[in-house]
């Protein structure tokens, strides 16, 4: 179920990128796409009734079923990369606004 939701968010992001002309909306749809992607990465690692892969004092015996830790580690990196690119995109949007005075790409005219 989570995987379908993830793929749905991916598609929503793609839809946004396909149709939106506003710079901010493009950034938002790019973010939706990335969140969908991160969700999908997590869903790949999920094991039925597995617990978080952290050893704690009250789970001592070794018969534990852990969720796959590697996708969560990869997601940690993917999220921060998403933050980096979004920050940069917003800064660019700021520059675009200063230069063209609008966020609509069509009104910016052919440069």
């Amino acid at each position: 179920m989570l995987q379908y939701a993830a793929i749905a968010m991916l598609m929503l992001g793609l839809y946004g990128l396909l149709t939106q002309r506003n710079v901010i909306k493009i950034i938002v749809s790019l973010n939706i796409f990335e969140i969908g992607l991160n969700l999908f990465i997590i869903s790949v690692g999920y094991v039925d009734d597995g617990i978080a892969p952290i050893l704690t004092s009250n789970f001592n015996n070794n018969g534990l079923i852990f969720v796959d830790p590697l996708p969560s580690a990869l997601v940690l990196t993917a999220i921060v990369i998403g933050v980096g690119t979004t920050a940069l995109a917003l800064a660019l949007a700021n520059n675009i606004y200063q230069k063209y005075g609008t966020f609509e790409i069509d009104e910016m005219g052919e440069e």
Partner: protein
Amino acid sequence: MKNFLAFVAVLVLGFLIITSLNNNEAFPNYGEADISERVSQAYIDRSATENPGDITFGETTDLESGPANIVTAIVADYRSFDTLGEVTVLFISSLGVALLLGGVNRKRIDLDFHPNFMLRVGSRALFGIILMTGVYVAIHGHLTPGGGFPGGAMIASSMLLLYLADDEFRVKIKGFKMLESVAGSLYVLIGLTGLLLISGGFFLENFLDNGVIGNLFSAGIVPIVYVLIGLKVGSEISGIIDNFLTEEAV
């Protein structure tokens, strides 16, 4: 009309991906991932180099990688080169934002919203608590969920709180730049010490002993590295916040 076409196309694509993933025999269905075939089985029972047998919290000592939180083990020990790359991404994006929006003398944008005295004082009190939780999360990265990145984000959120609550507040950029640069360089230097000082060592090798799994001072360099990352992430994101909330002082 174009939107409708795009919507249909995206819908069809989604449907196609889902069906192709379902009847793709190599791709495990949701929930039935068989960890034992995967590399991560070795991460779980720490058997990448030698097989320690079963691990019990608080007793087994000297594992190949110390942190109780396996995700942190992967992020900061097994694949810590990714995290180094990760840190450079944030470093360069904050540098980029500074380059795009930056200027020498900048002042706060006055958003004609002036918080009253009560809000300013109240947020000062709350600031400390948020900061401490952020630092706590960063320090206990190897034991509890969280770690450098969430901790750093919390530190930055405390800065954001002050920015929002007080329209003259400005972080001392010089200091944050220094913190960011020192933390980053320390991280790389730790990696290099692993490589150069210990003969036959590897870059980013965990050269300190791992101690007992579950203790605060265990898992070698992992907590140190994670704290450094926490500070670095915190200072970078607050730098970005500062850039966005200030404008060129004409």
